[in-house]
């Protein structure tokens, strides 16, 4: 049984994540009207929003501690929120501001918050090996922290994912791989590019449990993740967990989605994980006022983060030259010691 308090917490993060994506969409499109120009407006570049995928993120991350590592892919905001990434500094990063998580250098696909061990990458499946590496570090240091790699269902055909499964399995690493199955990889439906219906079936070939949560039900995900993360913490090895989620928006903002049928889009909109968890809360006696005030709290959190971000200064152009390395180019020294070395004699 998942406690009502835990469900409330998850609900709060789901509301935050949903409202966040909806607000970013508005901000992003501002300045891109009437003609959509990807480089215009307060948030330029690509933007991949995760509305409809919140259940996977909260169901897994609400088991985690700050010292546990999470890697996310190009669609990272909901996972970051569930992991407790600093929302203000994350938002400032998305707006390209100096006080952003990466001082405006990374942008929305490249968010790093070492305070809660969160990172993401825009290259498909490339978060999997580093998650295995974080797990390896925990194992070597005899710590009970775990690592989680999030990836899309389109990423399960990638070498970096498959190699990581084997690496994690053979070294019995405390890592969980979480597939967010939203049925689509940009315009490619999963049945066109992947031969297994359930990505979790891949686990069998790597001698680890494969579990699929067939609906984007945060409580069901929480229960399945309890098992997987518990297994990792108890040093019983990796798990492959898959969650059915839904893509309520385009792949990226500006995606015409001409490849997608209206039926598919409507079906995705109809299955709302937020409605589901709300009714769960009602079953626990949470009333309308209570739900409304939680909604207000989430919205306030998001609005405050966005307002704060937009007040932050732009980086200076010259800041571009910093942060390539943390040490000086010469390394930890500028001086080379002198030794007396014997002559190397080729004849000997």
């Amino acid at each position, binding site marked *: 049984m998942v406690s009502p308090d835990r469900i409330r917490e998850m609900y709060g993060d789901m509301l935050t994540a949903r409202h966040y994506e909806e607000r970013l969409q508005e901000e992003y499109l501002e300045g891109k009207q009437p003609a959509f120009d*990807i480089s215009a407006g307060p948030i330029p570049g690509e933007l991949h929003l995760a509305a409809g995928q919140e259940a996977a993120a909260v169901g897994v991350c609400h088991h985690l501690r700050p010292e546990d590592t999470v890697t996310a892919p190009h669609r990272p905001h909901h996972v970051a929120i569930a992991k407790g990434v600093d929302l203000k500094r994350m938002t400032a990063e998305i707006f390209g501001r100096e006080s952003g998580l990466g001082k405006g250098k990374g942008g929305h*696909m490249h968010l790093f918050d070492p305070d809660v061990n969160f990172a993401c990458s825009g*290259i498909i499946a490339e978060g999997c090996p580093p998650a295995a590496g974080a797990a390896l570090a925990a194992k070597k240091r005899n710590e009970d922290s775990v690592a989680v790699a999030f990836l899309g269902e389109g990423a399960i055909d990638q*070498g970096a994912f498959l190699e990581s499964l084997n690496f994690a399995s053979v070294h019995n690493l405390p890592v969980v791989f979480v597939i967010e199955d939203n049925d689509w990889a940009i315009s490619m439906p999963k049945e066109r*590019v992947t031969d297994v219906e359930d990505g979790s079936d891949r686990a069998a070939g790597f001698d680890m449990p494969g579990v699929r949560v067939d609906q984007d039900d945060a409580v069901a995900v929480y229960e399945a993740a309890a098992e997987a993360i518990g297994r990792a913490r108890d040093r019983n090895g990796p798990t492959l967990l898959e969650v059915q989620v839904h893509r309520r928006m385009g792949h990226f903002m500006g995606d015409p989605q001409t490849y997608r049928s209206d039926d598919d889009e409507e079906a995705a909109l109809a299955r709302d994980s937020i409605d589901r968890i709300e009714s769960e809360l009602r079953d626990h006696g949470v009333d309308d006022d209570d739900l409304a005030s939680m909604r207000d709290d989430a919205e306030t959190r998001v609005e405050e983060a966005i307002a704060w971000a937009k007040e932050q200064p*732009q980086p200076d152009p010259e800041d571009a030259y910093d942060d390539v390395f943390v040490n000086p180019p010469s390394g930890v020294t500028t001086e080379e010691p002198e030794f007396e070395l014997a002559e190397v004699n080729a004849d000997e």
Partner: protein
Amino acid sequence: MSETNDVIDRELTMSRAMVESIAHEMRDNEEVFYMGEDVADYGGIFDSTQGLLDEFGRDRIMDVPISETAYLGAAVGAAQEGMRPIAELMFVDFFGVAMDQIYNQLAKNTYMSGGNVNVPLVLTAAVGGTYNDAAQHSQTLYGTFAHVPGLKLVVPSTAYDAKGLMHNAIRDDDPVMYLFHKRLMGIGWMPAPDGPKTPVPETDYTIPFGSADIKREGADVSVVTLGLHVHRALAAAESLAAEGIDVEVIDLRTLVPLDTETIVESVRKTGRLVVVDEDYRSFGVTGEIVASVADRDLGALDAVERVAVPDVPIPYARPMEDEVIPDAADIEESVREVVSSK
């Protein structure tokens, strides 16, 4: 036919020109097919295959799993069987996951087999920044692919060139990497500068690799560049003309082979060389071009400047991206520099 009827005035965007040549080759040769992510229904994220699915169907316009090693490597294998695959890497930045197939198989099989095996594969990829897509989606990596022996490397800057170079790429029996700059394609959501949209003949034609195009003649300074920066250099040349500086702009069109002859001839005339590109500055295209001119005729070089991405990853935020990707003003400054120094 009268003279005026021969003037070609049908203008195409770069993407339409590319697609036209691919369609033409596919009609002529059943063995030509296209593989990539989102190339079927989507028509290529950057319009590289727009409309081809309708005409050729899924067997020949193939969406593939997100498995670059597998499908690029499969393209190598099919090409070695004599087919003529075109395989698309959505962004050149994703090369890393399939690097072995590109660097150790595609590029080297011909040589290692003593010429007994050949790989008639065209590897297309989108390159470039200027729209704040940050460090993993904005590179050109020209130097990375020009560096390894065994790959011909094409970088069109206009619709006319895009078509003629693509015809040559598909018919060539060797591997050709064809890097198209996103900003030049004429995509609705990423406005192109003036310039890449040009008149394009309806007929098929081939442009030889290794023939640079002098886009603007000038007596004072040779600006050598490629891709997006051809247009930035031309814009710079226009402003500099008002200052009385006469700039020659050379569009390399291909890096491998490199038309050293045209560059050296131009530098012999002007004495001043400014090399501009959108790749990292060190160990790359700009250094290579300066070195190859120096090798051939050191005495011709009175003054040299390089304009490239300073050695940092491409930052996200607008002020920083603008700082590191060379613009027309940066080119102008370097041209003034070589003019005043010599």
